[in-house]
């Protein structure tokens, strides 16, 4: 039997990051804290999943979604594609010009969208999550959000640039 007394009155923020130890009770506590709208609700990132040795593994995004669903409230998400990461870097290095910055990534809905959100040039590599075939499909999609995931350039892997650049 549990009552609200198990909630610590000194908690004023909940941060969800990657947690392999996630369980029902953690979901319950996180959701119960953020149900109070005065408490900050932060997700480090919303990558849904990632691949290791052919297995698809639950990412932080899926854990954030679980808490968000239980609490009926959406978090502030800090990671890509939110501009926050670029803004923090640019604050430390004010000379960075977005139009002269190249964003390289393997995941279109985080990396490439970050690039688009911040006015950066974008390069998608095929050595990770997303592929050239998927990009071609987004190019002709009716969904504006999907079309935004199309990078300026594509390379199978980052190292493929080397041969072309060495010769220059």
């Amino acid at each position: 039997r549990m009552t609200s007394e198990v909630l610590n009155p000194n908690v004023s923020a909940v941060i969800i990051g990657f947690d392999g130890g996630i369980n029902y009770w953690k979901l319950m506590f996180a959701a119960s804290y953020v149900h109070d709208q005065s408490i900050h609700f932060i997700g480090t990132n919303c990558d849904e999943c990632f691949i290791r040795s052919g297995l698809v593994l639950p990412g932080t995004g899926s854990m954030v979604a679980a808490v968000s669903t239980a609490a009926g409230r959406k978090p502030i998400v800090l990671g890509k594609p939110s501009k926050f990461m670029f803004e923090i870097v640019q604050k430390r290095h004010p000379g960075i010009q977005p139009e002269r910055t190249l964003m390289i990534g393997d995941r279109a809905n985080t990396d490439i969208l970050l690039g688009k959100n911040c006015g950066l040039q974008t390069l998608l590599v095929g050595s990770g999550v997303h592929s050239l075939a998927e990009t071609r499909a987004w190019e002709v999609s009716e969904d504006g959000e999907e079309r935004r995931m199309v990078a300026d350039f594509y390379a199978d892997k980052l190292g493929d640039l080397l041969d072309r650049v060495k010769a220059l």
Partner: protein
Amino acid sequence: MLYSEQCTVYCTVYSVRHSIGQSTLIIEMREFGSMTDAEVAAWLESFDTVMTDCDGVLWVGGVAIPGSTEMVDLFRKRGKRMFYLTNNSAKHRRVLKEKLDKLGFNARLEECTNTAFLAGQYLLQENFNKDNLVYVLGQQGLVDELEDVGIKSLPIGPDPVPTDGSWSVDGVPFSLDELDKRVTAVICGFDVHLSWKKIMLAANYAARPNTLFVATNTDERFPLKGDGCKLQGPGTGTMVKPVAMTAGRQPVELGKPSRYMFDIIQKKYPDIQPHRTLMIGDNAATDIAFGKNCGMQTLLVGTGVTKLEEAKQWEGGKQEDQIYVPDIYIDKLGDVINRV
């Protein structure tokens, strides 16, 4: 004469409201207290079958809500057929029947439907090969209901990620080959033993070709009982979402507001007519939407999840919210008795 005129007026208003095309459907919610005695009498005569949600309508926790047992008795005396519904999948239907009996509702097992039972029905309907196995993210009731129809599952229960450091974001000491080849269905229900490893396993099974992916229900949360209790209990929806997101695939949803529960009951009792069936519930997003999806009359009670103020906001609001607006709102089910 007056009675039948009133009855005609009620039925005409009802049918006109429901014959308007979806794009211009305007739902008016009546508050029970504002209905005349003649309207209440006509309403009682307008349905032959009652389907009711249990938690928040008949009882809260382990205590019957005052007047609910008397109301169910009244429905029976008036010749209405009763069905008891729940989106719960953790326990077998017989446990639901035991609780109904214990609190004075006198139910038969055939009148009880939960989503664990629906899972078995759905797999049978999909011609699930009984030589294969189901990966269950759920509790004993789900396993037992599957067993009742001859379907076997992998073991359930706690399956946490080892804390020896062997499991990390860099990789896990588990390979695709270790997945059981006999698994051709994944069922996600309520599981208090939810873990990252179970989400991973469910998602990898569900991502395989020719694998059924089923969610018993997607209820998001339920308030925990107790005075001023601010704890939010995560519902099955919070478990289904991580699996679906990781698998990159959406499951078939069996529970309310999907109409599957109604279809299964109607298959067994073909003379049930939706427009002469009353759906009673406390949760507009599941119960009332379910009633509307199946063409039933709907009654929202105020003793559970959805409050009158919310229902009123939907009433004048967006078109997509109209599915949550009940025909009638009543503070508690037992309030009907004083008017009859």
